[in-house]
């Protein structure tokens, strides 16, 4: 196979995509029904892919001791090119697109590439767009992206925790495929990453005395009796059919969303004061396998769990 054929069939650069997600629910931002993406004519191979590990090592006389192991987030740098007589105008459009999603509380720009059909995503902030000027018919700019998450595959996995009495499971297809720790059924999360995975939990009413807990599953598949983390709401807190509680460890927020059925207006209220202080406020899935349980006494109530499968 000649070089040109290899390049055509195994090109990483051609698979690069840049889009935007809402931070509140990790959904892809769409404009007129299509994912919003910036316009470029060419991209050069970026730097900063792969991983970098930091080890805190104590040197011994014979062997060294690793006291801390962390995965560093590396800046992604790439050159963006636009061609033609209106290349500067295209650059201007690109710049405006970036500015439109500058509010990091609301949006995260997402960089992704694909190898062998598996897409890897990372949420980023644009820290530098450095216009380099025209060379012939091309205008180029250096783009620097600061990762805000580790890389993750697919997008987000979500599932609805089943009623623990029936034991049935309802896999839930989120509007688009979102990555995460692997969902292996039976309300389980398998986390193969080095660190704990943050979870976003959406409880849909009606629900009395809402709670969510997460238990360790040992290597033999046995579920430990005591949950290692639990969120319980204070006595008297309940949610109606038109209400949801979102417990979002990604954004460190707990809030109640109420929809007025007659006007359709939505109000969002911080709910941290209503979380039982005797337990946790946010859930994280520890490395290994875990099982999620929730208060689903009413057949209409739901508990959705969102998480991301981080990779090196």
């Amino acid at each position, binding site marked *: 196979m000649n070089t040109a054929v290899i390049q055509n069939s195994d090109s990483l650069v051609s698979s690069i995509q840049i889009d935007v997600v809402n931070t509140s629910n990790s959904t892809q931002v769409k404009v007129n029904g299509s994912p919003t993406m910036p316009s470029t004519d060419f991209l050069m191979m970026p730097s900063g892919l792969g991983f970098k590990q930091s080890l*805190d090592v*104590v040197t*011994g006389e014979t062997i060294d*001791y690793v*006291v*801390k192991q962390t995965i560093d987030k590396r800046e992604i740098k790439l050159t963006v090119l636009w061609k033609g007589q209106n290349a500067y105008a295209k650059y201007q459009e690109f710049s405006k697109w970036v500015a439109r999603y500058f509010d990091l509380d609301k949006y995260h720009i997402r960089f992704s590439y694909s190898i062998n059909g598996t897409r890897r995503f990372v949420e980023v902030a644009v820290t530098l767009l450095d216009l380099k000027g025209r060379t012939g018919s091309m205008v180029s700019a250096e783009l620097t992206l600061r990762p805000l998450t580790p890389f993750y595959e697919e997008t987000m996995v979500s599932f609805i925790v089943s009623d623990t009495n029936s034991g049935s499971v309802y896999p839930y297809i989120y509007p688009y495929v979102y990555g995460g720790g692997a969902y292996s059924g039976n309300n389980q999360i398998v986390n193969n990453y080095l660190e704990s995975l943050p979870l976003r939990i959406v409880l849909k009413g009606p629900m009395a005395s809402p709670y969510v807990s997460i238990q360790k599953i040992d290597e033999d598949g046995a579920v430990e009796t005591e949950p290692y*983390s639990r*969120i319980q709401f*204070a*006595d008297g807190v309940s949610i109606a059919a038109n209400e949801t509680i979102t417990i979002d*460890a990604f954004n*460190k*927020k*707990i809030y109640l969303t109420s929809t007025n059925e007659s006007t359709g207006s939505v109000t969002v209220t*911080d709910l*941290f*004061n*209503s*979380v*039982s*202080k*005797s337990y*946790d*406020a*946010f*859930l*994280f899935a520890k490395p290994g396998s875990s099982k999620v349980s929730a208060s689903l006494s009413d057949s209409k109530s739901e508990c959705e769990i969102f998480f991301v499968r981080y990779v090196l």
Partner: protein
Amino acid sequence: MMGTGFICLYDHSFKALGTWTQHVAKEWSLTRKAFEADDFTATCSDWGNSKNACFVGLHTPSGTLEYIAFCGIPVTKGKLTTVTGCDCRHVFNQDIHVCLNKQTTNGSYSILDCPSLFSYLLKGVFAENGISLGIDYEIDVSDTGFCAWNEAAIARESSISNIWDLIQKFNAVYNTVMTVEWSVDSGTNVYSLKFVVRRIYQSRALKLSDYDIVMKLNQNTINRVVASDGSTSVTYYLYNDNSVGMTFDSSKCLFPPRIFTIVDEDIDKAKAKAIEKLNDNRFQDRVTVDRTTKLGSTLSDLNFTYFGDLAGYNAADLSTSKRLPVSAVKTDSKGMNKIEFGRLSDYWFLEE
């Protein structure tokens, strides 16, 4: 706790403040101290509302309350707000009328053991003076019931005294420590403060050469006190094993001698103050151990109820160890995790 945490501001009834109540801490630093006030600072993105803030809480990533302090005035610069916490135990930093010679109707002293002493200092003295501190708290001094009462170490007098200083003086006498803890009122789902006095009764032996050690020795310590009523006098000595006695023993006494004299018409009061003075100077050393070193994790469970038996304190003498209480635990968002032994104040060079 290490790493990312979040910060909440609470009003005096522990209701979290703000439209969004949780704020990811850009950085935080916490030094808990056994015998001095804690140091705590945290920086977050701008707070929408810090009005009525009474307490500032540091929470773990999963939301558990890790530390709480009185909230200083938040300072906002750019879009970042920095808040400095004031140790909750400093509600006892009050100069008020204290009666350590209070008697019951049958003529005996009403303070006759450690629980009654610490109960009086932590709560009773304020009620007696009609003073409200403005916050609700509980106390737990039950552990001090195991301490043997030392009548010679209490000056039976009525005077204006600083409660915090008195608590620390008696902590030095009885090897106790006062800490603040919090629990959750299940009825109201809010935190409540509890001040607890515990014995320092556990010990852990460690060989200093196993750790990256920073030591600070104070050679300025008063190690002899003369108690006098004008006509007679008694000399008390602080020994190298941190005990206090009346006998000169060159193998135990500290050198160079530093002498302080206390005169009181009542020789018993002078003696009590002399013992107090020397007890204040017990364990006046500082040894810092980094718990992120290769064996540092072996000390991860140490708290303020521990003594460290430090072998190799004197590099020329590996056969003996020096006993020092855990005095501080230093942590921050960048992963620092250090533990300090010894009661040497951060400001020892300003003291006499």
